[in-house]
Each structure stands twice: as C-alpha cells, then as structure tokens.
C-alpha cells in the first residue's frame, strides 16, 4: 500500500503525480544481501549499522522532496475549528 502503486484502480478521483514514485526509493534498504557486510567500517561501526543509520537522513530528504513538489494540490474545504488553535506554532499568544 505504498500509495503510488495502488493508484489508478478506478475508485473515483485518484490523483497521479510522478513525484510520488520517489517514495519507493527508501525501500531499497530492505535489500539485506547488499548491506549485510562488515566492511567498510565507519568510526569502528560495521557497514550494516552505519548504512542503515545514514539511510534515515537520506529517506527524510526523499520524503521532503515529495512533500515540497506535491504540496500545491488543494482539495475541497471542510470548516476548521472554532479557535485559532495552535498558538505555539504561530507564536501567537492567545
């Protein structure tokens, strides 16, 4: 259900956006035969460990690109809450 793969199956308005395909890239980390080795080490850590740690910022970058590239889409509105809610987010002091 990675989203992009499930699109186009006729349940009404599914919006295709090629940028969403990028979301498949982080899944490469599940290829254990490629990463299950000790060398090269980084700071004494076997490759298996540091490559998976390094994959976190890499995946964040990928999702961030998708987020920025697809954010223009706007759907129909629903009424928002009665209050301007998130004082901490906006820095307001109500």
């Amino acid at each position, binding site marked *: 259900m990675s989203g992009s793969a499930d699109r186009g199956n006729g349940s009404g308005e599914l919006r295709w956006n090629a940028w969403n395909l990028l979301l498949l890239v982080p899944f490469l980390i599940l290829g254990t035969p490629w990463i299950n080795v000790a060398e090269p080490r980084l700071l*004494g850590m076997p490759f298996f460990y540091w490559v998976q740690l390094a994959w976190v910022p890499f995946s964040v970058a990928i999702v961030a690109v998708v987020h920025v590239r697809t954010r223009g889409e706007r759907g129909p509105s629903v009424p928002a809450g009665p209050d301007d809610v998130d004082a901490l987010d906006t820095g307001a002091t109500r």
Partner: protein
Amino acid sequence: MIRVPELVVFTVLFVGVSALGFLAARWRTAPSLDHLEEWGLGGRRFGSWITWFLIGGDLYTAYTFVAVPALLFGAGATGFFALPYAVVAYPLVFLPLLRMWSVARVHGYVTPADFVRGRYGSPTLALLVAITGLVATMPYIALQLAGLEAVLRTMGLNGAGLLGHLPLLIAFLVLAAYTYQSGLRAPALIAFVKDILIYIVVLVAVIYLPIRLGGWSSIFGAADAKFAATPSPADGVLLGGNNQLQYITLAFGSALALFLYPHALTGVLASRRRDVVRRNMVALPAYSFLLGLLLLLGYVAIAAHVQPITNNATGRPDTNTIIPMLFAEQFGSLFSGIAFAAIGIGALVPAAIMSIAAANLWTRNIYKEYLRPDATPVQEAKQAKLASLLVKVGAVLCIVLIDPQFSVDLQLIGGVIIIQTLPAVAIALYTRWLHRWALVAGWVAGMSYALYLLWIIPNPATGSVHFGGSALALDRLTLLGWHPFAGSPVQIYVGFVALVVNLVVSVVATFALRAAGVAEGEDSTAPGDYHADADPDPRPEPVAATAGMSTR
C-alpha cells in the same frame, strides 16, 4: 539497595509532569471537554509541533527504549530490524494517511473502525476492526507498565509480591486520573517534556559511553566475541543466512502495521490540517535516528559487562533492566535519575494515548453502535472517560496477576493480528473493489492462520513449544497439511504470511460474492472527501462537519 538520589530526581520529574497532565485540561480550552472530539482528539486542532511530539511520544515508547536494545544485547543484528522498520514506515504511509485524515475530518470519524463503518455500511466489519484494535492495544499498554517497572526495580524498588507492584500502582493511578480529566491534551503536553529528556539522555549516552569504553570498534568487538562464544548460530553482529527474510518481512510487516494501530491514528486525526500530517511525515524520522542510536546501547551494555537484575516478583533475570542498569553503572546519580525519569515518563505518554484510543473504539464502535445508538455527545464523552479508566485497570491487572512474559507474547500477537485489518482499512482508502463480506472472510482466514502459526512456533530458550516468537521456519509452514517448503530453515515473519492468506481469500471471495450478487452496502464517502482540507483561515463553525451522503 535503594538508589536514593536517583529516586529523588525521578520523583521530582514525575510529580512535575503529573501536574502538567492535570493543568492540560485548561490548555487552549474548548467550550467543554464533554465531547468525544474534544476529550479524545483534542478538538482536532493540533499543529505541526504538537503533532510531532505527540506521535513521536506515542510510537517510540518506554517499551521500545528498554526492550529492543535488550534484543540486540541478547541476539545481535536481528534486533536492529526496528531501524529499517522506522525508516520505511513514513514513505509507506505518506499518501494513505493524508486520505485517511481528510475523510475522517469530513465525516467526523474518530477511529479506524468508524471509517470502515462509513465506507462499507457494515457494522459487522467495523466491529471486527474495533475488536482487533482493542485486543492489539491492551497488551501494549501492559508492556508500558513493564517498561516503567524495569526502571522502578533498577532504582531498588524491587519488592516481592503485591508490595513490589505498589509503586507501579501509584504511578498508574495518577496517570488514570489526569487522562480522565484532560483527555488527549494531557499526553500532548507531557510529550514535550518526555521527548526533550529522551533526546538529551540518548545523545549524551551515545557520545560519552563509546569514548569511555574505547570506541565503537571495541564495542562491536566485545559483541562479536560474546556471540561467537554462544552455541546458537542465530545470533551475531551480522545477519545469518536463515534470518534475512525474517529481518526484511518483519521490518516491512511492522511498517504496514504501524498506523493501523488505533493509537497511532489518534495522533494523526488530532492534527489540524493536511499540511501538518505531511510535514510530520518528513520530520518524524528524527526519532528513528535516535532509535537507531539507542538500539546500539544494547551492544554498549555488552562491552560494559552489564548483568540484568533479577525480578523479585518472578525470580528470573529481567533483560529489560539492561539499559537502566547501564545508566546506573556508567553515570552519576543525577544523570541516571534523569534517564530513569525519561524512560518512566516515556511509559506514561503512550499508555495515555493508547487508553484513549481504546476508549474511543469502545465508545464509538461498540457502545454507540450496539448499546446506546441514541447516545448524546456528552454521554459519549462520559463513556469514553470511564472506558479509559477500565482499560488501565485491566493493564495493571495483567502485570500484577499474570506473568509479564504473557504480556510480551500478547504484544507479539498484537502486531500480527492488527495487520489483518489492512485490507479493510488501508486498501479501502484507495478502492472499494473488495466486497465487505469478502473482507470479513479474509479477516477470519488471516486471523486464524496467524494464530495457528504462532501456536506452533517453539521457544528453545524457555523450552515452551508454543508462542516462541514471530519468526517461523519455512519448514513448518503448512497449508492444510501440505508443506510447500519442507526442510527449509529460512525464517519469515508470521504476520506477513497471514496477511498474504488474508488478501488471497478476500480477492477470491470478492469474485464469488459478486457473481452471486450479494448486496454491496452503502458507501457514505464521496471521492472528493479523500482530498478535503481545512481552510488556512479558520471560520467560526463547529468542528465536526457532517457531509452529504452519496452512493457509489
């Protein structure tokens, strides 16, 4: 021996956050907390920061902090699955969660079962989803208690019998009281404190401890030496030939299951706008990086020669005490006190959210659906508050009366069964092609097959022949007496196998039911509902919008 300074630091921080929990009721007050959307979803008004702390505090629990490093301590590389799991989870759910947020916002859905009810017009299917959620969540709450208790016992509150559980009981009474009063606002506020503490503790630990213990190379060297000395071929700092498939399917299966848990969805539905969810899918992996570092503390504990404490209530060594003991031995009292408080408070946040999610399920999908269809919002909120108390009492009883190991087994089963709701909840976000009764059939098939497979997995460590974990050797995989992979020692995650069975049955049954012309039920959602967003500029209207009915 009671560690007095640590206990003092712990108590001060604990009392502080409890006060926060009670004050949270007045935080950005709604006209009244006597409405399920207010009590159980914080009025659906949380912005990016609050949502980040709330979901982060919810998914990365005390149990994760003590139990998963203990897994690396005991078995090595297989325990590291939690990192790739956390990495792939967000790209996986990025798109479906946005659709779920929108449709829930338009129709006022509070639980995943609410959505299933609206999408398929089937109270039966919704009930199955609700019960699955309840059964999967209950042991999870009990495990938070186990995490809290590991810390309390490390601090010396390691009594036998009922007296030994007393500190835990007090902690949970306090938690129950402020959850009852403040609803989801309490964990949202406390999550700030919890996460800041956790970040400080973990960052200090992963920088300071390797320097003290001779660097990562000597830490991995010590771990390597430990695993080489054991007769078991399954452990080691790298994966073996037989557990790679298990590693992949467990990471992927857990990622699929993550946002099917009712409590995970609660945090998402409480957010204010689609953009809040989107931004959080980018920002939440900050916790994953932290988690990865924390997992490595399992190896640090090996290098530091940490020994687990014997739990005086069960008489067995409790491996969950590995991480608390590491802090107690390597750091001064003040810092270990803070670390213990971080883990302890780390248990309270998810326990509160989970009990709220369970209470929402009970209220919306059982009480209102079957017992009091005409319940007013005030009665719903009242019912949910009472249910949240009941859920916590149940969790405490689980820990006090039953062997904690039983909770661990149940939690394991929880992950395997919650994934069985994937076709009815996640696939339904995209297509209504699967027939509602086919989904029921798939659920029954997947669920019973999963339980059967879990039943036949032996546990070599304890000598038990049942419920020995979620890693199934393909050799034991049977389909009505047929062994498709006889002789293969390669392991696979049970939840994944059962999900495949569930999907196959759902598809086949859909063809059959459609050929027989069985009624499809009414879909009260419209295609546009899945893209709806809140306006950037709020207008003075009620929160829960009721949308027009539309049939497919």
